[in-house]
């Protein structure tokens, strides 16, 4: 390697390093803020002289984050399971049976992907009130399932068409297997890679959901992390240190998962957006 290209490489490495630092600034500010006691008005650029860990336990208790964490886990878990089961079942005939009805239904699901769910906020709210689902886990689960089903179907159907050989299903059919057993015993196990991607997309989006949660989960007992945090911010605008601690607690589970499963997160989220 000659001298100039070596120097160019060092410069570019330095540039990458600087970009990394710039992107870390808001997180650094978040951490210094979270570690300072109320009334410590030193600059957010400096670490506190005395680290105040108590902010975390105080935020955890006052914002009721334990309860919020549990609610978020329940909603994410059941919504993800429903998405996988309902979505994969729906994709199979849409990918394999090219009848007129199925071609139309596939287009229907694809078209729904562009619809912003929030555009129908007023009537959706009215619907949820009228079926008595306000302030229940179910409403958040169902809304998220409906919102992400089109993307799920799109990803599953594409995967079935492009990677699952038809011959496997035909052989099973000749042996007299029913459609359901072909689907669950032969097709579904082969969908693992795309199921993993969908699970990651669904978990990140549903875990972080605020748009649905703020409308339908106002009651303290069913609040998710994001709703609890926005309420907590409203009550503590003059004690931002506590809010910063609460924000760290709220984002920590996803950040830890991301750092350990980075490869899958990046691949999964990219496949969702690439094809969406």
């Amino acid at each position, binding site marked *: 390697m000659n001298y100039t290209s070596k120097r160019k*490489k060092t410069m*570019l490495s330095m540039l*990458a390093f600087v*970009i*990394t630092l710039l*992107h870390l*600034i*808001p997180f650094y*500010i978040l951490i210094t803020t979270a570690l300072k006691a109320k009334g410590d008005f030193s*600059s*957010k650029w400096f670490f506190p002289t005395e680290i105040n860990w108590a902010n975390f336990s105080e935020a955890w208790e006052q914002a009721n984050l334990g309860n919020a964490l549990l609610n978020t886990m329940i909603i994410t878990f059941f919504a993800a399971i429903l998405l996988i089961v*309902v979505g994969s*079942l*729906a*994709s199979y*005939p*849409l990918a394999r*049976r090219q*009848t007129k*009805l199925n071609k139309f*239904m596939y287009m229907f*699901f694809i078209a*729904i992907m*562009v*619809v*912003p*769910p929030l*555009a*129908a*906020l*007023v*009537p*959706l709210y*009215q*619907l949820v009130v009228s079926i008595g689902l306000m302030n229940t886990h179910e409403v958040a689960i169902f*809304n998220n399932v*409906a919102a992400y*089903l089109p993307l799920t*179907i799109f990803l599953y159907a594409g995967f079935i068409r492009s990677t699952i050989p038809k011959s496997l299903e035909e052989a099973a*059919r000749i042996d007299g297997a029913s459609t359901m057993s072909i*689907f669950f015993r032969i097709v579904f196990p082969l969908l693992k890679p795309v199921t993993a991607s969908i699970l990651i997309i669904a978990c990140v989006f549903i*875990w*972080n959901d605020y*748009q649905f949660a703020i*409308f339908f989960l106002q009651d303290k007992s069913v609040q998710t*992390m994001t709703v609890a*945090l*926005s309420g907590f911010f409203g009550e503590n605008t003059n004690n*931002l240190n506590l*809010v*910063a601690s609460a*924000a760290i607690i*709220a*984002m920590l589970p*996803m*950040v830890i*998962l991301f750092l350990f499963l980075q490869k899958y997160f990046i691949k999964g*989220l*990219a496949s969702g957006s*690439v094809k969406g």
Partner: protein
Amino acid sequence: MSLSTRKTAKIEKNSSLWWMYLPAFLFVAFFIVYPFLNGIRISFTNWNGFSQMYEFIGLQQYTRMLTDPDTWTIVRNTLLYGIGSTVFQNVLGLAYALLLNQSIKFKAVTRTIVYLPVIISPLIMGYIWYFFFAYQGGALNDVLMALGMDQINALGNSDLNIWIIVFVNTFQFVGIAMIIYLAGLQSVSKDFYEAADIDGASSFQQFKNITLPLLMPSITINMVINIIGGLKLFDVIISLTGGGPGNASQSMSTFMYDLYFSRQDAGYAATQGVLMMVIILILSLSALVYFRRKEVEA
């Protein structure tokens, strides 16, 4: 195989198996399509959101919307959030991807850190940047003060805060654009560049004539998802400015939320919802058509 079983097998093979997608259809029909159609109906009423009584008032909410000065501020903001974020995310995302496509140090760690905000809730991302931009004790004003400059109320200034919202949204999602461009760059064959080198093409010529045309599919995807995402912006506005001061930084989503829950103006909120739907449909479809055509040319 007997004739009759072959016959049933054939019928089975040609059936739509519609019952397999019935549950999915019901979910979508009940929670998306029905509310959407019902929203169009409500947009012709003066419903306040809770009362049993309301009247159909024809196009009154629509004429009100078209003459409401707030509407134009909010449409302008929504377009700025959608198109502005899209431009910044793509330019920056492509630049990062070009950098990280080289064999340099800090490649993996830069990719991780740039991508990290993607998995954090936009609401929390808004609060994190709030600590930076806040008027009192914000990190930005500490710097300005140290430099002997006047402190600024960045989030309370209606000319500035809409750009801060674009900036924070870009910061959060530039990682997705970067990853999609990186994947696109890695699929471009090295042979093209070697041939161009032999022909004496400059790096800029190579970028313009090889890299960019071959990246068109990635550009299409990025444009469409960023436009759709930006037009729907909600969480980050709530945490940074709450839509204020006044309605100065509202998007269509936050404005609808405000109309419905704070002002009991459900009929009007539904009308704004119809407008939002129309804008998103027109913009995302035209972006898709435009860039697909480019792809064919390239």
